[in-house]
């Protein structure tokens, strides 16, 4: 069944009205799940044009709908099946000159603080679009 709801505001149970744009703007604007080992594979995503394999444990995300500034938020996860990393900076997103409104560089690390390929990496981005 197809349908459409048009509403400017949503009323909470406590009786407060919030704008629907508040809800829409709070949704994730980009995400992906990718594998670094072997030939990089981009399993699924939203709002990406390509994935860059830019070195051991290093991925580059190229966005299709750019962000309005570089201050968007990235939540990332790194994992391999049945492996639990201990004492690990297991993930990282670089902001050192490698983050623009259209590009984000991602590093994954294991236990030795060196960039290393991992099997399943996920990234979710919140922020305002240009």
């Amino acid at each position: 069944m197809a349908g459409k709801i048009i509403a400017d505001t949503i009323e909470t149970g406590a009786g407060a009205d919030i704008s629907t744009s508040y809800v829409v703007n709070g949704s994730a604007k980009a995400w992906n799940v990718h594998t670094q080992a072997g030939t990089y594979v981009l399993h699924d995503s939203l709002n990406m044009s390509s994935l860059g394999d830019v070195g051991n444990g290093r991925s580059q995300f190229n966005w299709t709908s750019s962000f309005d500034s570089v201050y968007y938020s990235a939540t990332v996860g790194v994992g391999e099946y049945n492996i639990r990393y201990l004492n690990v900076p297991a993930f990282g997103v670089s902001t050192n000159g490698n983050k623009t409104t259209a590009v984000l560089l991602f590093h994954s690390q294991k236990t030795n603080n060196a960039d290393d390929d991992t099997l399943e990496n996920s990234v979710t981005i919140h922020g305002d679009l240009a």
Partner: protein
Amino acid sequence: MMQTPEFKGTHLWDRLCWAKENLEGYQSDYRVVYEDSVDECAKILVPDPNWMAAALQGGILPPVWVYHELAKDEAQEDFKKHTRGYLLHQTEPMPAMSEKEAIEYLILKDCPQSVWQDWDSGNRPKMVICRKEQLPQSREWRNAWRISNEIAA
């Protein structure tokens, strides 16, 4: 084939959400290998399957010059926020592309300009389009990968 709605002035993100909902992702076998620094290893571009489906479908993605305009704005010293984001949303979307045209578009969008502007001016190319099977099967020494000298420009 599903018909793309006539997106006029529709926010690009909304168009991408329509594509995600309605189009089957397309995993391209093509990869773009490029070198943008003598001090760094070769980099490899993997096309996004949802983006590729949108490119093949047509009527969704903006022309690539829009990204170049936004990149120019961002390169300004006093850049804080984009003020010309409307270019992404209000410019007439691209018609359907072939896979080859989509890869060419992707090169212009996601490879550094310094690479694609004179990719074949040296003794060997700075950029190569290949099939994923042609890449090394082992990632040993990944940070030392370079484009082979045996590939003629």
